[in-house]
């Protein structure tokens, strides 16, 4: 397998052919913020948090799906990128109904952490206050679409790891929302195995264990990686 050499933030980096810029940066200890990306499932480049600048290319490219090529010069934290990332987070906050103070994921939320990381102290866009639904019909879990950022991690983790494909995206654009089964109440979706991987995968408080109160959400994110390793590498211990 051939090795590509590239430069990330003025640091020479070598990465195997086929690796993404995100993977190469991670190996080199360079942090690129991500949100929809989840280790162990496919990448969709939906959130645009991991956008990077590559010299000679006018477009900003998502690091999670852009493969390394020989001699490219990558910048991951330019003022332009900082501005765009902050705008992405602002738009996510303005687009849904995110009320951290009473959220189950308060203090343990990737959206909240990113808002802090990118320095978002307020949003410059008017809040949309959309009317969205809450489904707590499942005996163990609930989904609050007010807190959903459409990262589709639940869709991918359920389809690709559990193989149940309970979740999908309905509608388009600003009307898009996460749907269970054929737009049924979660409790009526026979495909659901009640495994709880969607709870572990969800970056916000959108999918949670029922009965969880403010700031109580816990995730077992390592379980997802364990299952992938068990399947692909036959490593059966955690």
């Amino acid at each position, binding site marked *: 397998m051939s090795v590509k050499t590239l430069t990330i933030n003025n640091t020479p980096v070598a990465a195997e052919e086929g690796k993404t810029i995100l993977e190469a940066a991670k190996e080199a200890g360079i942090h690129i913020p991500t949100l929809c990306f989840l280790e162990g499932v496919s990448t969709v480049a939906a959130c645009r948090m991991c956008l990077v600048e590559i010299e000679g290319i006018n477009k900003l490219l998502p690091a999670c799906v852009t493969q390394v090529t020989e001699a490219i010069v990558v910048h991951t934290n330019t003022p332009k990128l900082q501005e765009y990332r902050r705008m992405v987070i602002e738009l996510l906050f303005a687009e849904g109904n995110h009320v951290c*103070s*009473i959220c*189950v994921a308060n203090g343990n939320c990737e959206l909240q952490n990113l808002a802090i990381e990118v320095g978002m102290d307020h949003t410059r866009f008017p809040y949309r206050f959309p009317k969205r639904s*809450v489904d*707590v*019909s499942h*005996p163990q879990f*609930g989904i*609050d679409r007010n807190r959903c950022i459409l990262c589709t991690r639940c869709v991918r983790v359920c389809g690709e790891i559990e193989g149940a494909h309970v979740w999908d995206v309905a509608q388009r654009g600003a009307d898009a929302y996460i749907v269970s089964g054929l737009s049924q109440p979660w409790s009526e979706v026979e495909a659901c195995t009640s495994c709880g991987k969607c709870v572990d995968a969800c970056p916000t408080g959108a999918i949670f264990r*029922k*009965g*969880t*109160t*403010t*700031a*109580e959400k816990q995730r077992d994110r390592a379980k997802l990686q364990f299952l992938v390793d068990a399947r692909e590498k036959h490593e059966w211990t955690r």
Partner: protein
Amino acid sequence: MTKKIVIDPVTRIEGHAKISIYLNDAGEVDDARFHVVEYRGFEKFCEGRPFTEMAGITARICGICPVSHLLASAKTGDKILAVTIPPAADKLRRLMNLGQITQSHALSFFHLSSPDWLLGWDSDPAKRNVFGLIAADPDLARAGIRLRQFGQTVIELLGAKKIHAAWAVPGGVRSPLSPEGVAWIRDHLPESRATVKMALESFKKLMGSLTTEIDKFGHFSSLFMGLVGKNGEWEHYGGQIRFTDSEGNIVADGLREDDYQDYLGEAVEKWSYLKFPYYKPLGYPDGIYRVGPLARVNICSNFGTPEADKELQEFRARAGGVANSSFFYHYARLIEILAALERIEQLIDDPDISSQRVRANAGINQLEGIGVSEAPRGTLFHHYQVDENGVIQKVNLIIATGQNNLAMNKTVAQIAKHYIQGTEITEGMLNRVEAGIRAFDPCLSCSTHAAGQMPLHVQLVGSDGSILSEVYRN
């Protein structure tokens, strides 16, 4: 010509309100009204939320007494789960409420009200506040602030946050008190007790010079309502509802919160966002009743702790039996702090307080729940209806300040009639009217389900709407 004086906003209270004073042709006070002019809408926007979130959401109604909403909400949640919570959880919730009573009463007494009688009713309004108190009597101010800190720290030791700790949950609480927490409370109790005793002694001495205030600050007959324990003792979390009259006779006893709609009615007046609850059997407005420290001290047979009981005897001797003057709210508040500290001392010696069995788990077993608890300001009811998945369909909150609404209006009118005469209105006169409201320690943020700058604006308005005179205090 009829005239109207408006005090807007009322200062040193929690929330936003104004007072209108109506003068008749002879320039005498005809009537006075206490208007609550803020609107919050919690009952509406909680609809559609899972009931398990209600404790966290309703605690956000108020930064002064979030614990009160937390507990009333958690108790309502217990009913929806249809569980009896573990004994340890019951004791831990009580401990937090005692911390809450301590900190809130200390705030009302030292920070908000004491400047009136320590610095003088007619003293410079720019200095008649907690900062003026710090300048005039730094030791007292510091002791009061530290007493409040003690109560706040009890809350923090349990819930990890001083304000808005979402620690009480349907089925119990999240965590017990750590041994370090027990040790901290034990170490700091003596100082807090010394402060409240010192405050009681100075207040009792002052009372001799406050006879007019005692006589005119909402001195009238009304019912009193609150929770009492099994044997009629002072209660703040469990027990059942009791009503007594102005002579101390028990009007109703052993009432359950579940039946509150049978004995409490709510009237609405178009000039206030605050409803007017009344005791149903006597109708509106004859069913006027008071809640809070004064009511709890009046309705209970005893406190059940030695020092508070001693103070209760003296309180009743000074009041001549039942305290009907709303000015006694301040006195009752101090005795309640003492009782709270004594009970905290008992609770931290209880081994249950460190038990790990603090939370019962269950599904939705009842579609309706009513919870009650004593907030520092009085009896607080939460009433939820949920669907079979536990999603809130309807919320009704009956707040202590609301229940004192009729009494506050009567108090304002009584004070205005006594102190305000003629067209020459001094700031000091108006301060007394406000102080009548302060005695109740109203929390308008809660009762309308805000905080902010509260300058005073007084208008003397002619019946034709023309402004005859204006006084500003910024």
